[in-house]
């Protein structure tokens, strides 16, 4: 499928760019997501560079380096923050460079004897947004949580649209009995209780599945039970477009159904669907957060916003920084997404660009 950017689309894009609030929100979101993709370089317990006895190590990615590699007395992964102190202490010319936030989202920073969770934000300990109940860095969990959540939302967007477009265009284009029965099926399907299914399926998910598998299956479950909403829009849009002359012209020339749907109808339909996309992303983010909040989402201890919110709400009085960070991040992200959405809608407003006949 090839979607050429016709002048109309170009004009829409230009218009989107001229809507500064939405455009910058888009850039910001995109930047944040791209940055989160290489979060290991910014927020990580592993050092960026270690110089040890004449050799350079780059531990950020790849296999973990056991402590005995750097002359420590243990075989498990090196604690680079400790190593830094040791290097500093011994001053044998070894050095290492830690990322700006030297924590990963899973590790518990039980270093002082009296720390028992909920350390408030502090520059000194580099816990910029404080720690949670088990002394995990809130910022680290937010950043990695954002990565997972956003990737999840994009995957959700792609898959729901794929299903909805296929189903919607088939129903809309062929119409008649196919539409009649197909639509009923869609209605029945949309009435399957979503949360029930999630609870059931999450509880039977085998634990030996890796995290990626678990997250993808959760994504699949959510998509399977929520693609139907978009189908109606696609269907009606296809219906509308189908009646236009260019479709009739294509049919007269002898184009097949597939070609007509893919080459002629879809480009016109998609432009209206694009306006929904940011809101679908917002919905996906809040759904996965809500599910995590309720405890049916990502498996513990995956960093997730819902889990942070839950912790924050449960410990509202003792650790207000958790809920404020998590809620702040959520509000900010959703606001940005909404700004993008608004801008897209305005840019694609059919009142400005509709062509009749």
């Amino acid at each position: 499928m090839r979607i050429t950017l016709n002048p109309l689309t170009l004009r829409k894009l230009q218009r989107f760019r001229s809507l500064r609030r939405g455009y910058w929100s888009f850039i910001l979101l995109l930047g944040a997501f791209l940055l989160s993709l290489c979060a290991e370089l910014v927020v990580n317990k592993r050092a960026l560079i270690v110089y040890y006895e004449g050799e350079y190590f780059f531990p950020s990615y790849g296999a973990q380096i056991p402590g005995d590699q750097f002359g420590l007395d243990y075989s498990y992964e090196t604690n680079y923050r400790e190593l830094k102190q040791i290097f500093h202490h011994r001053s044998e010319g070894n050095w290492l460079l830690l990322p700006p936030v030297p924590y990963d989202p899973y590790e518990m920073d039980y270093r002082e004897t009296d720390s028992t969770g909920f350390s408030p934000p502090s520059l000194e300990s580099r816990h910029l947004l404080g720690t949670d109940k088990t002394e995990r860095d809130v910022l680290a969990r937010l950043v990695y949580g954002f990565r997972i959540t956003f990737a999840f939302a994009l995957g959700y967007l792609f898959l729901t649209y794929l299903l909805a477009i296929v189903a919607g265009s088939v129903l809309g284009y062929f119409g008649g009995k196919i539409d009649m029965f197909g639509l009923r099926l869609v209605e029945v399907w949309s009435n399957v209780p979503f949360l029930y299914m999630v609870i059931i399926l999450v509880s039977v998910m085998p634990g030996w599945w890796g995290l990626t598998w678990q997250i993808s299956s959760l994504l699949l479950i959510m998509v399977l039970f929520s693609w139907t909403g978009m189908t109606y829009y696609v269907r009606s849009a296809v219906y509308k477009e189908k009646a236009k002359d260019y479709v009739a012209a294509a049919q007269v020339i002898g184009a097949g159904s597939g070609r007509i749907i893919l080459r002629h109808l879809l480009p016109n339909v998609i432009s209206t669907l694009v306006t929904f996309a940011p809101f679908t992303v917002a919905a996906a983010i809040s759904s996965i957060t809500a599910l995590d909040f309720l405890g049916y989402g990502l498996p513990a201890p995956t960093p997730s916003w819902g889990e942070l919110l839950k912790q924050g709400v449960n410990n509202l009085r003792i650790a207000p920084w958790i809920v404020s960070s998590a809620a702040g991040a959520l509000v900010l992200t959703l606001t940005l997404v909404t700004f993008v959405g608004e801008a897209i809608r305005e840019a694609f407003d059919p009142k400005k660009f509709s062509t009749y006949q």
Partner: protein
Amino acid sequence: MNTAKKINLHPFTLLVFFFLSLFAGCEDNTLKKPDSINSGSQPQETARTMGEADREYIRELAREFAQEFRKEIGSSVGDVNADQPNKEKTFTEFSGLLDESGNPHPLLAHCSDAVLDFYLKHKDAFQISSINQLPKDLQWEDGSKENEFSSPDAKRGGTWKTFMSDFPRTLRTIGPDANGAFRRYLLDYNGVGLVMTHPNSDGYYPGLAERWALGEDGRTVYFQLDGDARYSDGQPVRASDFFFTFYFMRSKHLQAPWYNDFYGKDKFLKITLFDENTLSITYHSAKPDLVERISIRSIPEHFYDELGGDYLKKYQWVQEPTTGPYVVRKEDIKKGQSVTLTRLSNWWADQKKFYRNRYNPDRIMVQVIRDPSKAFEVFLKGDLDMFSLSKTDYWYEKLPNDHELVSKGYLTKVTFFNQVPPPSYALRINSSKPPFDDLNIRIGFQHAMNFDLVLKKIFRGDFERMRTVADGYGKRSHPTLQARKFSVDLATKFFAKAGYRDRGKDGILINDAGKRLSVELLTGYKHLEDVLVVLREEAKKAGLDLKLKILESTAAFKTASEKNHQVVFSAFSSFVELFPRFWEPYHSDNAYSPSGKEKFTTDGSLRSDIVVKTSTNNFTQTAVLEIDQLIDQYRMEDSLKEITSLAHQLSKLIHDHAVYVPGWKKPWLRMGHWNWVAFPEDWGPSESRDYAEFQVFWIDEDKRLLIDDARKNGRKLDAQFGVRVYEKHRINF
């Protein structure tokens, strides 16, 4: 925009529907009836409540009429209810269930045919003897040497406001769904058995029986019923109700196999009635704690005159008449919201020793609050009277000692050192699932669990590490055994023995076949997630990958009892009893079928064609011939000395088998209460497991108003309580 909104609301709205449908499920009971019942002949349950009320009324009329009628004609039809002067005579006339002409014994005259048939079928177990046959030299005890544990200062009245996390699915106390959190209000806090164990000493105090005596054989206990004992519907407790208890508890209509077994005929050999107030029960073997084991409760026979396949449905929302002080009135059941219990105004034991000054509130209002942290907020608002503060964060952070409510004298925080076997918080390893079929992996796993860090950081040193499978049983607990300590070196050493030598890219051990050392840890305790998170992170150091699977508690329990887990983190609440139980969790009969020795080959190893047994508490799938033999011996043993020695041996063997990673125990209970709640001077009996168990507190409604008023004005009250520690029962470990 619409879609966005729609999907957005999804989880929440559907959650509401989810819970609503749960309740709908409760009302519309579709539980299966046992197959053998001819359900076609059961009356249809159209307009059920109406029909039932009518029937009850008619039954009542008939009863009254029959009593009058009997008095008038002076016949010896023999209902115990009817006060007949010639009753004594009839009892001594014959023993046995039937007389020569086939009429039932007067004590059983009221029984339905089905019930009588059951007794006749088990003639050995149900016997009627005459009062003359009662051994003459019995040493009757009545608990008069024991001290009362309530306070004479207690005030009657007021409403105790408390909460439950879910609405009860039934008001039955037995059968499917009955084992919920609400049952304690119907049974544990409310029921009276034949004889009650004294919560401050090793002795007993009277319950339905005013005196009791141990028989010569050491297996039989004689009871003399308290003539005042009444059910909440006004009917007296009859000796024959204890016959009926067994008929009832063994019925398959209950769908309660545990009870069927507990009251089984292999446990309770015989029950004998001597007259309308005297009975004896014979247990299968002599036990040091026989009186306690044998002290069953009475089931009101008159209430269950038709015990059939519709039992579950029919009694789903009806409270069985109780011998305790609190009843649930129909109008006080607010589906999905709350259940309120009301104290009987004329409770039979009201003024009796050991019962007076207890059960003080007039009403107990149990609201549904699903979220514990929300419940805590409700408590701080003053809409719940008491709250358990056993969790560290509640005690230290959410309600610190300098909290305004405490310092102003509105609330009191209590630490009470109690003496009970702790709930067994532990990791239970399923030894039938690879890689745990290898002892080295199990031992390595034990050394990879850093419970010390959990205790230090999450519980702040307030709890202690549990040592064995049977802590808290005094001398019966092993004196020296310790749980294995966290040690990366030892863990990796044992893992290496099992073939896991090298670390993979992520630091997790792999064996020669390239398999990662990764296991799934199942639990139903969402609130203890942080404990598992700490264990998981620490286990990584030993090269072990723990995958956490945190489910709803019922789902987790089901998974574990179907033995589909690798490791489960769970706790069983221990019974307050003299010596621990080993059969349920460690006998091979609860791990595999067939039962007994057949599952072992001649050299003592397990046969390959055995089948995993589900729905048992042997979560570790322990099946070791030596352990089996000791448990069998342990169960048959009646000398306390031998029992102690066997318990030690068993604890050691199970320790060596390394299937149980002991967690923690806490030597106290902690709670907070508003100061309108008052407790006795010692706070409570030493065996208290929660603040309500023995119902010795009372509610002062005047003080509630006073405190409410003070809160409104921000006035400080005389803070004589604040933070209190009761150390009377503290044991130095």
